[in-house]
């Protein structure tokens, strides 16, 4: 018998039991749709994290106080967990292939202007900061090295702060009070959005780190140093040099700092997303297996129920192999049609989720192929035993079957 005939026979058999075929395929549809949706959510999250890591800047290296090298953060009494502005200066002076560098002191403060007040992040940074963070000004200009040296009472503000404090006017040139000290606004940063940790990056006021340490927070150590390497292939070398320099500056004390490249940060951040994706896809995969078992079950019932049909076919000249192929094709059609519909449902579902919940979803094409091929495979595996059973029937027994 031609393949086309077998296909026709299988299609007719499925059509004879449309409702049952649909219900059976539903198992596959749900399984595949679940896989596609889960993977889409997972890879959407991963892509978002990657984008956010990229938004940190380019070829970035960060130095943070505290050592993460031996089982969590070390510190406590006696050990001075500190990173100083002098460390930053030393790096700027001695390490080669650095494009930009900024010390950073972080704090939260109440700021006042215009009779309005607002609780925001007040960060002390260097003049290179917008450059290092790849974060251009929207209007006005960044403060300068001179302002840092002179402990200038100047600031630039993020978009959120600008919108909150100066809803109807241009903030540039206005005064902002931090701890009751007037800071002149030199510029407004362009909007940046949310960080990896979900906080609003634009909710920020940047002042010279020297002013921050002396006038606002009265701290002696800084929160971090951001360094931009000159080139992507210089990152590792710069990191090494920074580590060497800081170690040397500590003169044998245990290292109380951590140097991380952007890639390390990215892989740490995406690792979670990857684990989540794997987990979700795993759960969805289980539903695929359940779908497969459903198909096997229905095919077994179908073989028993259609014993007479099989008898008729064998009596009028079907070979065992014809019957085997027919049932196998039925199973494969059920599962792969289910798989195709499942892909459509999954893609539609993740688009709906994305537009409804605002979740970042990304439908990976490879997974579409994987799920369609996977569902066909499930069809072959779950259809084979029932099909084999059908093919082995004896025509007389099958015809006599009630």
């Amino acid at each position, binding site marked *: *018998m031609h393949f086309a005939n077998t296909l*026709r026979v299988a299609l007719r058999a499925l059509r*004879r039991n449309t409702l049952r075929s649909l219900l059976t395929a539903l198992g596959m549809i749900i399984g595949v749709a679940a896989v596609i949706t889960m993977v889409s959510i997972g890879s959407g999250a991963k892509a978002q994290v990657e984008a956010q890591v990229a938004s940190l800047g380019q070829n970035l290296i960060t130095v943070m106080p505290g050592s993460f090298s031996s089982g969590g953060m070390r510190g406590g009494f006696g050990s001075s967990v500190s990173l100083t502005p002098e460390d930053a200066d030393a790096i700027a002076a001695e390490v080669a292939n650095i494009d930009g560098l900024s010390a950073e002191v972080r704090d939260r403060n109440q700021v006042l202007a215009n009779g309005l007040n607002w609780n925001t992040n007040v960060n002390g940074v260097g003049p290179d900061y917008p450059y290092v963070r790849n974060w251009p000004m929207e209007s006005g200009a960044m403060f300068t090295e001179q302002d840092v040296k002179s402990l200038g009472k100047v600031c630039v503000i993020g978009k959120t702060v600008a919108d909150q404090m100066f809803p109807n006017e241009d903030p540039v040139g206005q005064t902002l009070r931090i701890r009751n000290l007037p800071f002149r606004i030199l510029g407004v940063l362009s909007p940046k959005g949310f960080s990896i940790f979900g906080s609003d990056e634009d909710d920020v006021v940047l002042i010279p780190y020297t002013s921050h340490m002396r006038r606002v927070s009265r701290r002696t150590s800084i929160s971090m140093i951001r360094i931009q390497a000159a080139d992507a292939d210089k990152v590792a070398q710069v990191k090494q040099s920074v580590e060497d320099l800081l170690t040397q500056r500590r003169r044998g004390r245990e290292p109380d700092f951590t140097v991380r490249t952007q890639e390390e940060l990215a892989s740490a951040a995406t690792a979670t997303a990857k684990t989540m994706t794997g987990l979700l896809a795993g759960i969805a995969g289980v539903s695929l297996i359940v779908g497969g078992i459903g198909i096997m079950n229905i095919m077994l019932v179908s073989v028993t129920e259609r014993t007479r049909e099989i008898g*008729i*076919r*064998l009596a*009028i000249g079907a*070979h065992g192999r014809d019957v085997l192929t027919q049932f196998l094709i039925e199973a494969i059609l059920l599962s792969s049609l289910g798989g195709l519909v499942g892909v459509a449902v999954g893609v539609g579902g993740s688009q709906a989720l994305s537009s409804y919940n605002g979740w970042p979803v990304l439908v990976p094409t490879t997974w579409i192929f994987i799920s369609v091929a996977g569902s066909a495979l499930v069809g072959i595996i779950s259809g084979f035993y029932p099909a084999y059973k059908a093919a082995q029937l004896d025509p007389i027994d099958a015809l006599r079957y009630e």
Partner: protein
Amino acid sequence: MSPVVKIQDLHKIYESGEVPVHAVRGVSLEIQRGEFIALMGASGSGKSTLMNMLGCLDRPTRGTYELDGINIDDLDRNELADLRNQKLGFVFQGFNLLARTTALENVELPMLYGRHRKFSMDKIRERAMHCLEIVGLANRFDHFPNQLSGGQQQRVAIARGLVNEPQVLLADEPTGNLDSKTSVEVMGVFQKLNDQGITIVMVTHELDIAKYCRRNLILRDGVVVRDELVADGTIAEEEMQRIKAAEAAAKLTLQAKSEA
């Protein structure tokens, strides 16, 4: 001309139960082309067993069977299937049509199998339609079995049996599930086919059905005890007219009664 069916000393012993059943005990038989045979006998006399062997659905325990010059002993399972497909047509007592499948698609079924014919779907459809015409059901081609009467279903089954132009049409109690009027209808189809030269072997335990055939074989306990030509056979067309006349008369009397 050589006989289309030639069996010699055929035996069938069923070993499946606790005691072996010797269902057919040495049947020898020759069937010529164009014959119309009724295989008769009481229930359990081995009619179906013999038919299954004639139909190449079952192998004899002993004896030889040549169908159209081919010794079936030499054939494997698939070759037997091909032989059934090409040389035999089957009509069963319970019609055995595929449910929820149109009359036409049921008739097409044998053409979907078989190694040697590779017809186009159009050709398959055309031949199936032609066979439905022969049994007078062309106008019902798109009906499902449950939309057809028993006699019509059996005629669809006959059309299916004819579609591969078999050497022999085998029917095991084709009228067993039918009332007397539809039985006549089906026998009429058989007679028409036989007039066109098709060889038919059918099983029946009803004497008046056997009268439609030309030759009667009577089986008892697995052996042929009588083999005779039918002298005063019934002609289905005449019988049908008689039934219709009787029906009309019955209607008239019924009417007369209700008017009275």
